[in-house]
């Protein structure tokens, strides 16, 4: 790799931080200035990260958009980066934690973790019924592949969330010896978030539903429909969330717009 390619690569990486509408202009300016640098070009290019970050922090809504988990891919990437981050916290001290990974300590540790994991799942099921709502099978609805993708997405979130509290509690052990005991609570709230996140998404494109509209009024909750309707921004369907649970409608209900 030539130094010119290397420096251009640094600038391209920093450009990722720049809000999209300003990115091309920003990159053109830095690349143009780079042509005039005859020494310390690497230091010059590294400064671009600070500039990019400044733009990101001072563009209204840019931070929110950067961390938005609207797309399912972003959501999975966010969880993957949390796994990587928590793993990186314990990796430098792996010799310190060796008793936890080697027998007989490993078996006891794994058993304790498994127990807490199962208790967390039971508590979750008892406190917040894990139902995702009614998503009726529709012959004119999406294909099996698309429906399967929704379940894979849910499973991926559960799988990715599982190791995060373990790594975090191990990393916290030196400063907080009781850290593993809070594992269960982190899982309970984490899994609750996973379910809530899944309920807020369109079952077809897995993007967040938007444009909430209140329908009916609380006084109509017994005889009429009272709740909120959310729509998929890509037009796949509408989700009805009951405002007050009744005997016949206590679960959210999805309706495909094609049906």
């Amino acid at each position, binding site marked *: 790799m030539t130094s010119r390619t290397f420096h251009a690569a640094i600038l391209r990486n920093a450009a990722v931080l720049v809000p999209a509408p300003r990115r091309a202009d920003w990159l053109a300016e830095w690349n143009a200035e780079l042509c*005039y640098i005859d020494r310390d070009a690497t230091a010059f290019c*590294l*400064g671009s990260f600070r500039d990019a970050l400044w733009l990101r922090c001072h563009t209204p809504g840019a931070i929110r958009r950067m961390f938005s988990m609207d797309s399912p891919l972003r959501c999975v990437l966010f969880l993957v980066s949390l796994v990587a981050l928590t793993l990186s916290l314990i990796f430098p001290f792996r010799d310190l934690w060796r008793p936890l990974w080697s027998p007989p300590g490993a078996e006891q540790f794994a058993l304790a973790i498994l127990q807490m994991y199962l208790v967390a799942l039971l508590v979750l099921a008892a406190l917040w019924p894990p139902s995702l709502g009614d998503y009726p099978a529709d012959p004119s609805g999406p294909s099996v592949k698309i429906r399967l993708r929704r379940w894979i997405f849910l499973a991926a979130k559960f799988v990715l969330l599982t190791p995060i509290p373990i790594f975090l509690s191990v990393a916290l052990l030196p400063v907080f010896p009781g850290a593993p005991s809070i594992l269960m609570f982190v899982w309970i709230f984490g899994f609750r978030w996973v379910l809530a996140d899944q309920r807020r998404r369109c079952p077809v494109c897995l993007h967040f539903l938007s444009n909430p509209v209140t329908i009916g009024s609380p006084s109509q909750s017994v005889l009429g429909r009272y709740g909120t309707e959310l729509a998929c921004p890509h037009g796949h369907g509408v989700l009805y969330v009951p405002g007050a649970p009744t005997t016949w409608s206590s679960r959210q209900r999805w309706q495909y717009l094609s049906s």
Partner: protein
Amino acid sequence: MLHSYTARVTSSAKLSHTAAMILQAIHAGHVYGFSVMETTGLPSGTVYPALRRLERDGLIGSQWESQRIADADQRPARKYYRITPAGKITLQASRMRYPLLARLFPVSAGGKA
């Protein structure tokens, strides 16, 4: 009108020495990011965010040079900065705060000031 005047006064009162140095450098005719770096001795990670801030506050403006000129010199077009009337007022106030500022980078005869 009053609001913009107040904003300028507030902004000038808050202009850091670094920002004032950069503003003075641009006023003195160092209109490109890299030439501001060379003149002030500040690193790129300080100069460019400061340029964004000054531009956001309306103290400087920026423009791309003509592609024709850049093509004739066989180099990419550069973005140059110029001080705005509000920037000049702020610089004037900053010079009172930092008396050595004008002597650091005097305005050259051929400068864009």
